[in-house]
């Protein structure tokens, strides 16, 4: 039962954080200079016309009225109206969210698929050439600005080598997206056994996911290396050696399993990095996700989408951390039963 209480306490902590994020998000959007009406109204609009539109959008109210109206709306799912697409923000969000999720998950898989083995090998062969090379390679991913890496990747793989498809969105132009089940094109085309779309969406996903994945690979590799080093020095590993267990079992069995637990906790942090890098990568690869949507909202002072993006990122960051804590409890008996 105390596990339930542990979860409940963590959830309770989430509420003030989310509330804080909503407020900071609102203030940020409110502070942005410029008037959304003007962006839409164009030059010919007379002051009266602008005033009328502003009044219609409720922008003439003092900030606290707008704030309470925004929070009120939030409570029953109304994320407000986006002036750049003229649709309720919720609708835009739901339409764009799967794209961002698919990119983020793919990047996470790549970051883990490369980061974890790199970290383990660096730790096992500490201070050898492999360790140094591994560290430099993983840090390289972080050192390159995502848009720089992305554009070079596009230029190299799409334009020069013709290996990757055009960096434009989630699927080839002449193909229809798969029937929506999860919203993730790769998953949906797998489920519906539609191989042409599977191949095309994988092709489209490869470069952006690689770019974003490499940029977060370093924290994963660094964390795995540190906790692996720690595990290899543990007493139970000396016992395992003394018990004649084969090296492979000692290192990649006992040591690795114990080393991976703290790594799980960094997934919250890594997820944060991914969402941040998302906006830039989405622009370079014309990926119809929410990152891109938020950035353009920021530039045209379209506060609805910006606030919702901030709320979504905060909400998912908190959710992931909560999930990580619970996962931590599940795989580590010491916490589960304490």
């Amino acid at each position, binding site marked *: 039962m105390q596990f339930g209480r542990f979860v409940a306490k963590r959830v309770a902590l989430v509420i003030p954080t989310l509330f804080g994020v909503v407020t900071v998000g609102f203030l940020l959007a409110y502070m942005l200079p410029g008037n959304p009406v003007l962006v839409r109204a164009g030059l010919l609009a007379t002051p009266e016309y602008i005033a009328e539109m502003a009044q219609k959008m409720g922008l003439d109210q003092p900030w606290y009225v707008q704030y309470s109206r925004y929070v009120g709306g939030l409570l029953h799912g109304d994320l407000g109206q986006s002036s750049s697409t003229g649709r309720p923000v919720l609708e835009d969000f739901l339409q764009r969210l799967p794209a961002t999720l698919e990119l983020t998950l793919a990047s996470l898989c790549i970051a883990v698929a490369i980061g974890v083995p790199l970290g383990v090998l660096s730790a096992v062969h500490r201070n050898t050439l492999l360790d140094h090379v591994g560290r430099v390679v993983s840090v390289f991913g972080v050192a390159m600005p995502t848009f720089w890496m992305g554009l070079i990747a596009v230029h190299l793989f799409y334009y020069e080598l013709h290996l990757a498809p055009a960096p434009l969105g989630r699927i080839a132009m002449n193909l229809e997206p798969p029937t929506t089940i999860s919203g993730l094109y790769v998953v949906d085309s797998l489920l519906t056994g539609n191989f042409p779309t599977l191949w095309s969406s994988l092709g489209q996903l490869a470069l952006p996911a690689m770019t974003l994945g490499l940029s977060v690979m370093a924290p994963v590799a660094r964390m795995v290396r540190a906790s692996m080093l720690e595990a290899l020095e543990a007493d139970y590993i000396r016992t395992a050696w003394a018990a*004649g267990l084969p090296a492979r079992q000692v290192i990649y069995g006992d040591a690795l399993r114990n080393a991976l637990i703290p790594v799980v906790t960094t997934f919250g942090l890594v997820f944060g990095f991914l969402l941040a890098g998302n906006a830039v990568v989405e622009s370079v690869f014309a990926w119809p996700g929410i990152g891109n949507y938020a950035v353009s909202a920021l530039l045209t002072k379209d506060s609805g989408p910006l606030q919702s993006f901030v709320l979504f990122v905060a909400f998912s960051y908190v959710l992931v951390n909560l999930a990580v804590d619970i996962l931590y409890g599940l795989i580590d008996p010491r916490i589960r039963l304490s």
Partner: protein
Amino acid sequence: MSALLEVEDLSVEFATDDGVVSAVDGVTLSARAGEILGIVGESGSGKSVLISAILRLVRPPGRIVSGRLRFEGNDLLALPEAELEAIRGARIALVPQTPRTSLNPLMTVGRQVERLLRLHRGMDKRAAREAAIAMLERVRIPDPKRRAGQYAHELSGGMCQRVMIAMALATEPRLLLADEPTTGLDVSIGARILELLRQLGEESGAAIILVTHDLGVVAQTCHRVAVMHAGQLSELAEVDELFERPLHPYTRALVRSIPRIDQQIALKPIAGTVPSLVNVRPGCRYVRRCPDALAACRRQRPPLIVAGNGHRVACHAVGQSNVVR
């Protein structure tokens, strides 16, 4: 009868930033089946390094620089790693000092015993589980079936040490290395653990090497004892012989420092501290603290000379005074 384990002139060094650390310097001793050999010495005297060397577990930057290690007739130093894995945990087993942290936290204690049985005894899953539970019972763990499914953090220190012993003895090893098994436990539990070790040793006929810094433990449990100081073997003798007639100045000082209930004698602490083993000078390493130090003691390491039935001592002063023939 030939000794189960013969260690001859074994030296182990560690390359560090500050220089070469000579952790073990020319140690010669042997362990016989059914006998408990105590190895005693202050912390930092190289006891644990010796144990690691016997198991060929000295990892870089440490390395065995000289000496011979014979176990059951074959030369451990020459064996390839694969064959060593067949000996470790099967023919030679280790009981570590800190039981709780020496168990894998993510695996139930039962399974940690089982996997050794399956690895070294080729048992199938079901047989191994039953044997493991039997083994836990043999080391007197109450309600072994339930305990087998629990994790290390759910057991007490004493209980964990019993599991370690179960793991060690499950594969019926010929040699059991107990590296300060009771240091982490309080006295009463420690005594019962030692009693268990002695009794299981007798039953299996295995040789036991008991490493400790507690002379009381030596007196109560060991048949023979080796005294180590700063990586060198000072003296080796039967337990009673050593306590009644300590020859090496260091052993004499040690025996004198044991509080005696029956006599009212002032305790005399040993002067000086254990010397640093970094880039150490040749010769006897007790010289700085030894009242009987001779010029020779600074030049060469005193050879191990026979001083009576099975009583060996490495000390120039004792040698020259030919007190004993």
